[in-house]
């Protein structure tokens, strides 16, 4: 059992999400930076589907009521066990000790994996908190207890390589044009740099910059959307859909970002440019 001492502004339980239910209007959800969650899980010997914790900017503090192996990946942050900084990515937390993940110095989201995984009740096959639909466990609050599962998965042979969280420098995102590129002057997407807006969240990363020009008037009948879809609402400012995105949307999608993991670690104000992929 883990007791939440300091929940931070938004810390949630996340695994790889609940794909396969989109036809019922159920978002996929899941860790925003899946590379980091997989790495943390691999470090403690969990299977890749185990649930961990995703923090946002300010980290969190957890008291381990039982001893367990833990790992932290993702954002660069000072990790302490009972106030002593931890140098390794994977470490043992003694019973009664407090694991503290400090504020992110680079990147946004830290991922905490515990050997055995966070064992809250799964909903539709996933333990992820979906901030859009409300499915899954509630977000962490101070004093909340989180069960730890039994380590049943065989330890992974090799941990995944460490991926440095994004710097605050410009982010270049590969994008495949379409399906609704015929609604826009697509050159505009590549001509200008955008800035990540502070109203971004787990549903989508909002960009601010010069508005994209529509070449087609009218409304798009609702259609299915995918992770990484660059949707362009009426104001012309693109929005990139992240894990908690709705399953259908009524605004045209100009293109799809190939890899959304860097956006999980990109802070508001970060410059974003798009690069076309054929």
């Amino acid at each position: 059992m883990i007791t939440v001492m300091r929940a931070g502004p938004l810390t949630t339980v996340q695994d790889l999400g609940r794909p396969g239910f989109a036809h019922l209007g159920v978002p996929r959800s899941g860790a925003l930076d899946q590379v980091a969650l997989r790495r943390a899980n691999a470090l403690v010997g969990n299977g890749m589907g185990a649930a961990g914790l995703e923090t946002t900017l300010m980290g969190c503090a957890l008291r381990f009521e039982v001893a367990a192996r833990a790992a932290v990946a993702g954002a660069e942050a000072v990790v302490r066990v009972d106030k002593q900084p931890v140098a390794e990515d994977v470490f043992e937390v003694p019973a009664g000790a407090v694991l503290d993940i400090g504020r992110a110095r680079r990147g946004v989201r830290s991922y905490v994996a515990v050997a055995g995984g966070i064992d809250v009740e799964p909903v539709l096959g996933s333990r992820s908190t979906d901030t859009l639909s409300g499915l899954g466990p509630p977000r962490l609050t101070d004093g909340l207890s989180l069960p730890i599962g039994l380590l049943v998965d065989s330890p992974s042979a090799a941990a995944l390589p460490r991926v440095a969280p994004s710097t605050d420098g410009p982010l270049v995102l590969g994008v495949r044009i379409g399906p609704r590129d015929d609604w826009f002057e697509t050159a505009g997407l590549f001509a200008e740099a955008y800035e990540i807006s502070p109203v971004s969240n787990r549903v989508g990363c909002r960009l601010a910059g010069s508005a994209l020009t529509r070449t087609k008037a009218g409304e798009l009948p609702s259609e299915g959307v995918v992770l990484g879809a660059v949707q362009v609402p009426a104001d012309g400012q693109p929005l990139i859909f992240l894990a908690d995105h709705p399953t259908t949307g009524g605004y045209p999608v100009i293109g799809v970002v190939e890899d959304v993991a860097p956006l999980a670690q990109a802070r508001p104000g970060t410059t974003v440019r798009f690069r076309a992929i054929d």
Partner: protein
Amino acid sequence: MMFMRVRPVGRSAVLIECHDGDEVEAWRVSLWRRRESGELRFVDIVPGATTILLDGVPPGTAAELAREPVPPGVSAEEGPLVEISATFDGEDLDDVASRWGVPVPEAVRRLAATPLAVAFCGFAPGFAYLRGLPDEWAVPRLAAPRPRVPAGSIGLAGSYVGIYPAASPGGWRLVGHTDQKLFDVRRKAPALLTPGTRVRLVPR
């Protein structure tokens, strides 16, 4: 023979464009069967108003599907039937009746007499867009959405009928409500209304 427009969506999804809701349903039934039989692979199938999205497909799927003719239409009697016990007391019922140019009892009779079917789900888990009302009865969404629409509210937007599975903000014109639970993760089938389900609103 009529062929489809299939658009790639990123690296691993395709969007099939259809002419109308009947064609969407024909594709949905056919694609679902082909996945069950192991012939096709995809993670998610998301019908829309006039499209079907297949997400998590192997490379080359768009080109393969683009060569295929439209599958045969499905009979209107094919899907399972769900009866929704409805109380027609919605805040916008008078407004809908006047937009239709009929007295309220006639509006209620129309809503109860029209066979509906789930075109697609979206907006929220278990929120089904029901088609079946003729285009002439389409009503616009509210200019300003209500901040809170209670769970079970039955509303109209365009020519769709929708039932809110959970309380949420919403811009549909409310004609009534039901006490039936539209979405419950503890049920084996969490959504009461899934694409292709036939629906009747039964006045209580």
